[in-house]
């Protein structure tokens, strides 16, 4: 089961909000697809809850991405920065 991060070093960063916006998916849709309540997705997005491994994998599978593309222990660069890095 997941837990609340105890500090900044314990925090799991994610791109769920960006991916939802990109795919036009609401929190409710995502929550229903991965079997949690919409507010839990909100807590994960806000970094107030570190999801269990199973939930993280289900979210990554929903977006059809590897889990490390959605979650990271380090702050994730923005997608525009990532694109710039890859094209330059």
């Amino acid at each position: 089961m997941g837990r609340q991060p105890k500090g900044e070093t314990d925090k799991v960063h994610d791109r769920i909000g960006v991916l939802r916006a990109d795919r036009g998916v609401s929190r409710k849709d995502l929550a229903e697809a991965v079997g949690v309540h919409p507010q839990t997705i909100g807590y994960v997005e806000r970094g107030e809850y570190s999801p269990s491994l199973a939930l993280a994998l289900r979210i990554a599978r929903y977006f059809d991405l590897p889990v490390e593309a959605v979650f990271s222990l380090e702050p994730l660069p923005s997608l525009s920065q990532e694109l710039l890095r890859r094209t330059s």
Partner: protein
Amino acid sequence: MSSHPARTHLARTFEDERYAWARNRPVRRRAVVGEAALLSALVAATVVAAATGSGWTTWFFIAWMVGMLSFIPLHSVLNLGIRGVLDRDGRSLDEHQRRLGERSHRAVGWPSTALTFAAFTGAVTVVAVTGHVTLALCLGFLLWFTGGLMTYWHLAWTSPEEPADVDG
């Protein structure tokens, strides 16, 4: 958790957006303070009734009835505020909700046990000192009841503010 939270009738009620107002932190905390004040007043009334030797009087009966009836809406608001996490079928909860419930159970373990012990000793003391068995049962019940409510109070007080921008 690997399955979708079950949609029981009780779960649907607690998830109903008509009760979103009850989930705001100030409302939850006011409900906790209200319940704590109500139960403290009832314990005080019971102790006063036992100490003055008046026993089970009409005023005490009325105070008890008003207190218990007031508790119903107060606890309903509190329970709506925490989405009934402690009362719902575990299958209707997701991993975060279960985590919050377990955390509150752990946090109030000792105080709750202490109140259960105080309920027993308090009731025995009232009988031994005043001889009022009914008042002793009332005091014991109130302290035991308070011990059980502490998990609800902890959860309602400490639950994080819900994300306000839940879309679609």
